């Protein structure tokens, strides 16, 4: 740990990121430009989230990292180890014990508390980018509050598919002003964006930071006759039986066998520990390993 400055980044970089975070909190949903640094991992692996976490962490924090809800995937494990090594922080897989949670593409099932901070890894922070490739234009559109194009896109979904087919990175309007990309979380998670914790979004390659203070009003875009729906697979978890959690579908053999399981591994594991058993699950046993 003595080989690195606390939390890897140098102090001047952290100050620059911290100033961006404060302006982000003051203007919820607005993407604050920042001078993103090279991190010891490739772009697309969470360099934005890592930089925000580095600027926010204190030595007293308990740090959790999830990747699509799972604590045990490569991306989550390596980021967790990175801050264990460079910041010496305690780490956990339990949502309730964490004070800072870095996430890729999910919000934990358990509601976050006031003393918790969640940091999102964001690939493309600009919700209008796939509709308008020019940054000059999208910046102008945000300044003029010109979001008609986004509604046209949702409308075209309805005219082609009969429903709004956008199922992740579902655009939201923050405090009636900025349209924001909530990062590629499933739209099932959108209602959780109004929460008690502080939400910070970091996009490393695109050099943007944005934020949502607690209890900020976040509305998923929709139409009166096609209201927003937080959808999930119409199933219960095959491991723990939960019917209120977001599910991953897993192919388990070559014969087309499949099972649904909670994407939030901590939530699923806790339920199994408490004695819940799903259709294909077995009663929980303490791992021999």
């Amino acid at each position, binding site marked *: 740990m003595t080989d690195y400055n606390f939390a890897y980044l140098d102090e001047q970089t952290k100050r620059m990121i911290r*100033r961006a975070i*404060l302006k982000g909190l003051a203007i919820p949903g*607005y993407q604050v430009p920042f001078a993103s640094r090279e991190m010891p991992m490739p772009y697309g692996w969470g360099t934005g989230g890592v930089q925000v976490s580095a*600027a926010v962490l204190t030595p007293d924090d308990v740090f959790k990292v999830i990747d699509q809800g799972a604590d045990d995937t490569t991306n989550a494990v390596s980021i967790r180890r990175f801050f264990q090594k460079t910041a010496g922080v305690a780490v956990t897989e339990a949502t309730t014990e964490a004070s800072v949670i870095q996430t890729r593409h999910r919000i934990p099932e358990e509601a976050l508390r006031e003393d918790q901070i969640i940091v999102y890894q964001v690939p493309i922070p600009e919700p209008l980018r796939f509709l308008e490739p020019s940054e000059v234009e999208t910046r102008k559109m945000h300044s003029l509050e010109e979001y008609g194009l986004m509604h046209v896109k949702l409308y075209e979904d309805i005219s082609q598919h009969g429903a709004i087919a956008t199922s992740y990175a579902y655009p939201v309007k923050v*405090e009636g002003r900025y349209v924001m990309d909530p990062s590629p979380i499933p739209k099932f998670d959108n209602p959780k964006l109004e929460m*008690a914790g502080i939400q910070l979004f970091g996009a490393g390659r695109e050099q943007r930071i944005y934020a949502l203070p*607690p209890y900020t009003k976040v509305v998923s875009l929709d139409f009166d006759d096609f209201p927003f729906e937080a959808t999930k697979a119409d199933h219960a978890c095959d491991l723990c039986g939960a019917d209120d959690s977001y599910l991953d579908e897993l192919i388990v053999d070559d014969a087309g066998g499949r099972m649904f399981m909670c994407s939030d591994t901590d939530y699923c594991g806790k339920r199994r520990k408490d004695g819940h058993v799903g259709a294909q699950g077995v009663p929980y046993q303490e791992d021999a390993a």
Partner: protein
Amino acid sequence: MQVTALEGGFGNAPIDSAHAFRGVMNAMARPGTIHDLAGATPPAPLSVAAGVVLLTLCDPDTPVFLAPSRDTQALRDWITFHTGAPFSGPDQAVFAVGAWDELPLTSFPIGTSQYPDRSTTLIVELPALDNTGATLRGPGIAESAQLSLPDLAPLQGNATLFPLGLDFMFTCQSRLAALPRTTKVS
């Protein structure tokens, strides 16, 4: 340069500033909440909280405006030694420090429609700071909060500029509260 300019900085900059920033961030994310800051002892008349905020957020990239009551040579030397921040008039300031009555609120940049973040953050030194007085509503506040604000009209006017506008931090001794442009006061 006097010896005092060299003293009173963070003992352990990475750790102290991390703790300080957590307080500042919580203050900005939850308008009306009061947080204790520690780690720096700036020369009088600057408060501890204002000193900690400057050490946590200022560097050569951030021009600082000092209002007359805070514009002393000792304080300039202290800020220069510990942060390297240049001093500027209000129109260039990224941060401004002073008492409420002496800050020229209309002279600070409030951002542009395309870059509303390019606005000044004001650190307002108050004689008292507690959770009484004006009612605050807005992002970061579940229902409402109360804070002893120095005045209402200019802050109400500032909120109408949203998404442009100034962001405020209020400091008193080691205590800090913040009022971003989104907060509606009454």
